[in-house]
């Protein structure tokens, strides 16, 4: 029943998540986020702490209930499904968390952990389950001797491979990966990232890859969405955003991440943002970035910019200063490296 034009695997529309913070205060964690991921596509959701990127991930799995907005999986709106009605759909979407130490149950063996989804969904048990688990562990680079081990016997990199095996054993259509390599050392991170790319291409799942690390999304993602204070400020193809970021915040973020080459790094122009990220309890009116934006004008302080691409391309930006023939340059006011 697939239509000729590939339907997105995930579509998120105007997602809002507000948390009550007592005394009538409201944390505006996510405020109107829309995104979609096509079949086999990797979308990198980038932002700093408090930008709301993890909350988006949790709302997609309904690990937390959205305040408003819609989440559709393969064309089906799951926003208002009951827990029971949701259960069969959980086969299609899985999550990998950041911390490989707290996301595996210490009292289960690796074999039990990876077999859990098969058992939950009554797909396989006994010898057949054991066969599938062994095969899946092998795909993530772990030998059969791992089956009877406990999480504490494994290194961080091995545990993250177990998390991947558990997430992928039901061959889901979508994997939400929330900072899956951030806790790992560079050499271990490299092998886990290679593994994720291989599995993703071989199994063809779509992926929402949530991270603060720009170099990781540049390596892995087909498209990127940049979040700031609960909103997406820019989204588009990875290469295009890295080559020509349009939003002043994206420009600042890219310029602030140091490149591992002293000659290049010391010649780069950097935007050092003034001030701090405002509190999500009381986000600024107008453009949420205006309080730190080096090129903000009066209009930015009052009027909320819409996320749109005036050139009708695939690279929308939420900034008043972006017009069909002009892109602001936050680095114009910047200082050279040293």
């Amino acid at each position, binding site marked *: 029943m697939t239509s000729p034009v590939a339907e997105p695997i995930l579509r998120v529309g105007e997602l809002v998540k507000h948390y009550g913070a007592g005394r009538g205060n409201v944390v505006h964690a996510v405020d109107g986020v829309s995104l979609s991921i096509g079949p086999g596509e990797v979308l990198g959701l980038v932002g*700093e*702490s408090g930008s709301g990127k993890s909350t988006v991930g949790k709302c997609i799995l309904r690990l937390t209930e959205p305040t408003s907005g819609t989440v559709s999986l393969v064309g089906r709106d799951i926003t208002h499904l009951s827990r029971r009605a949701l259960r069969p759909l959980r086969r299609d979407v899985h999550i990998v968390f950041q911390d490989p130490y707290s996301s595996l149950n210490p009292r289960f063996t690796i074999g039990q952990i990876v077999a859990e989804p098969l058992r939950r969904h009554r797909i396989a048990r006994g010898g057949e389950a054991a066969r599938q688990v062994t095969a899946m562990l092998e795909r993530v680079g772990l030998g059969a001797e791992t089956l009877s081990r406990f999480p504490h016997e494994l*290194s961080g990199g091995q545990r993250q491979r177990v998390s991947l095996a558990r997430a992928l054993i039901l061959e889901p259509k979508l994997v939400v990966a929330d900072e899956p390599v951030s806790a790992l*050392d*560079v*050499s271990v*991170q*490299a*092998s886990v*990232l*290679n593994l994720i*790319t*291989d599995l993703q*291409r071989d199994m063809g799942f779509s992926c929402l890859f949530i991270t*603060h*690390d*720009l*170099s*990781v999304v*540049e*390596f*892995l993602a087909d498209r990127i969405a940049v979040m700031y204070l609960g909103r997406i400020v820019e989204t588009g193809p990875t290469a295009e955003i890295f080559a020509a970021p349009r939003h002043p915040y994206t420009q*600042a*973020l890219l310029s*602030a*991440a*140091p*490149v*591992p*080459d*002293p*000659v*290049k*790094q*010391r010649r780069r122009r*950097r935007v*050092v*943002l003034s*001030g*701090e*990220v405002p509190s999500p309890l009381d986000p600024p009116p107008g453009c949420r970035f205006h309080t730190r934006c080096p090129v903000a004008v009066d209009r930015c302080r009052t009027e909320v910019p819409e996320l749109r691409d005036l050139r009708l391309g695939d690279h929308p930006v939420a900034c008043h200063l972006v017009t069909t023939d002009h892109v602001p340059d936050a680095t114009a006011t910047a200082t050279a*490296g*040293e």
Partner: protein
Amino acid sequence: MSLLEITDLTVGFDTEDGTVHAVKGVSFGVERGEILALCGESGCGKSVTAMAVPRLLPSATTRLSGSIKLDGRELTVLPEAEMRRIRGKEVAVVFQEPMTSLNPSFTVGYQITEVLRRHERLSARAARARAVELLELVGIPAPHRRVGEYPHQLSGGMCQRVMIAIAVACSPQLLIADEPTTALDVTIQAGVLDVFRDLRDRLGTAIILITHDLGVVADIADRAVVMYAGRAVEQAPVEELFARPRHPYSLGLMRALPAAAVVGPDGRRRLTEIPGMVPSPLSDPQECAFHPRCPSAQADCTASRPPLERHGDAHLAACFHPGGHP
């Protein structure tokens, strides 16, 4: 004479499973006004090496040998009372977690003035005025107001600036910063690194920056020491190190970064992995500790341990088959 001279430093910890050899015969110096990066992955011994300088390692279970000279004075044998006069005054430390390093029950002003009153014997009023100056120095806006606030009222980046203000309060000759920006966002990190650069330029403070992030090393350090399994395997000026890494481990670290992805024969972008795992810290092999993971390893790598040898100006590497071309 270098400001700090570490010679053949060896640190072991007694544990139930035996002695953990955290640092094995590490030697390097730090010049006045120099920013030295101490880099390597988890467990390589970089933090233990640095924390041995202000003697912040647990005394009961630590076995330490070798020499640590600050300005010609041997710190390892100094009586604790004298060490206390050096700690915070001549050598200061900034830790990774700014939120847990500050005491939540005292104002930031109190925590800065505490050092000043202890070491400089300043009056309460003079110390307070100096605290405001220090907050200004590390780039905290509205320092007059901030000085009376508690840590929970400040963001992570601001708390780290307060930690740096405390560390530099007595104008130390040496500042040790242990992953000072790892817990911070990149846009905040850039500002904090600027504070370090500024301190070095204005006050001539020497800084040992412990980090796993090669981007940070490239950004701020003058020279770097790369550690692996408790040993310094390479040291060189930063531009030289990145241009011509001699030790296969240093090269491996640089190639493993996502920024160094290569296109494989099948057209897929791939990262260059370092196969295998770090050796157990309980072992103390008499061979090159990296050889099981090393693409250049040969028979002699298992016969004895390669010494740290000079490869050009100020460039040292511990490898029998170093890469890179002069």
